[in-house]
């Protein structure tokens, strides 16, 4: 049983979105892991009904964390600076390989005085997005500290890292090339995937979050498959979730005329 409404058509992922730069990517495979594709086809992805991954967005103040999330989730852009109080979150729902999947994007405050509050929300993240301003070298340098803080609350071996340079529209091509070189180096050091975006123009924003969703989903399913080991997830879940079967049989009968 799934109480969630159908996923928006522009949030459906049928293929693996590709990375921005091969030099700093989490992986450069063309497709999803074969086991993941297979599990999705056989509906053995575990956690019937609701797959949700927590993603935290950290970085210096006013680098555009909130703007980045708002551009993707609400397709809006407010050029006025409004400090985030502590934390905020947005839900974004996807359908990856036919499986409903939700990202909970936690927007944290960049201001130092809120850090103690925001850091209590770091725990349990499946992905960490570290944002810096492409026009501010210092914000790039601070990303290491942000990462260290975020990793204190998380398992460094399982969490996915993304290093995102923002405000790309404000940098000239020459400046950008210089900055990207440094950023790629940092990304490589922290084993993060590098992206450069502009929330103002929307450049790469959608591509970036789709990549986050796809890789998080892939890791999530792989972890579930791993966890269940020789047990077949599908069987276990099917046994344990009679309610979902009820719904499946009920929904099969009715015509597909969802609003």
């Amino acid at each position, binding site marked *: *049983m*799934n*109480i*969630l*409404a159908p996923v928006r058509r522009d949030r459906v992922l049928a293929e693996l979105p590709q990375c921005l730069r091969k030099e700093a990517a989490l992986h450069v495979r063309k497709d999803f892991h074969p086991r993941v594709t297979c599990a999705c086809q056989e509906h053995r992805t575990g956690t019937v*009904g*609701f797959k*949700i991954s*927590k993603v935290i967005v950290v970085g*210096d*103040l*006013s680098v555009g964390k909130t703007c980045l999330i708002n551009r993707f989730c609400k397709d809006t852009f407010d050029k*006025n*600076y*409004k*400090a985030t*109080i*502590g*934390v*905020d*979150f947005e*839900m974004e729902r996807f359908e990856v390989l036919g499986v409903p999947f939700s990202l*909970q994007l936690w927007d944290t405050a960049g*201001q*130092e*005085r809120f850090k*103690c*509050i925001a850091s*209590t*929300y770091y*725990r*349990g993240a499946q992905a960490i997005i570290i944002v810096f301003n492409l026009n*501010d*070298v*210092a*914000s790039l340098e*601070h990303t290491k500290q942000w990462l260290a803080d975020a990793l204190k609350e998380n398992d460094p071996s399982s969490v996915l890292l993304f290093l995102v340079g923002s405000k790309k529209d404000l940098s000239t091509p020459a400046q950008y090339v210089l900055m990207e070189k440094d950023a790629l180096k940092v990304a490589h050091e922290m084993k993060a995937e590098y992206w450069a975006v502009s929330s103002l123009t929307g450049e790469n924003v959608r591509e970036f979050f789709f990549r986050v969703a796809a890789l998080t989903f892939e890791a999530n399913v792989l972890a579930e498959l791993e966890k269940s080991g020789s047990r077949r997830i599908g069987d276990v879940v099917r046994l344990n979730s009679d*309610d*979902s079967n*009820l*719904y499946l049989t*009920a929904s099969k*009968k*009715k*015509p597909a*005329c*969802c*609003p």
Partner: protein
Amino acid sequence: MEPRRVAPGAHDWGPRVDAGSGTAAELVYHLAGALGTELKELARRFGPEAAAGLVPLVVRALELLEKAAVGPAPDSLQVSAQQAELELRRLREENERLRIELRSGPQEERALLRQLKEVTDRQRDELRAHNRDLLQRSQETEALQEQLQRLLLVNAELRHKLAAVETQLRAARDRESERELQREAAVGPPPERARGQAGGPVGEQGQEPERGAPDAGTQGTPENPTDAPPQPGRPPKVGQCSFSRAEVEQILQERNELKANVFLLKEELAYFQRELLTDHRIPGLLLEAMKVAVKKQRKKIKAKMLGTPEEAESSFGLWYRGEAEAPEADASSAAPRELRAGEEATAPPHLDPVGSLTAPSS
């Protein structure tokens, strides 16, 4: 021949003989007697020669008559008796057969009638079942519509509360930034600036005044130095702030829960709308099971979203429920109780929506 002639010779037999079976034989004997008398009379009158030729003929004729009158031989009687018996058996069989035929006719008819009755009964039962079904479905539809209505109400209420909390937060932030500006003017750059170097915070500093732009309602709120409890871990600037860190954390937690609720309610609403819009109807039992499952799933998702253990009852859930159950205490049990207590003197206008919104929830 002699004994037979002697036996009926008794004349008192006569009348009985007429009615008896031996009628014809008796007549023959009478006739023989009469003819003998007549022949004796003829012989006496005209001489024995006159009747001599006649006597053997008459005797012969009488003998033939007697034979005919006495009836057939016993063996021929036996044959006819057998024939009669056969005939009788045949007739009995035929009778039996006819009776069976007679009886089987109505039986077929009766079976047909019975079948017809069964069909009618079944159809009547089916009709009744359909009627019941229809009734039940209309009741289910009503129940669903009621639930939808309720969900819409709850949704609106939660949205209002969320808006209220956001207003509170915004006001608090504005006040704090304003205070910070004042402090900055007096003391110099705040401690967090020390971390960033010259380049970093420039943007923020430039925008600081902008974000300090007053919210007409809250800007006028007089500062009350006593409204916030002293925080040991924080520098003196907290003393001016109307929100302690714990309070901000609580507000954030409540906001997050409200947001999670709004998200889930929106999804649930869409789900039930879908159910209502589709022609497919769910039987009551299944509907109940689904409702229970939805509730269970909602709990699970919410726990996931907020990162809380599934069973733990949230503080917000507690006060929210308490408020819903005791509407008369709405003013005192409204969410930020501590905040209210702390800000009683200022009575900020942004708290009003919370208080006024509790009324519809009762």
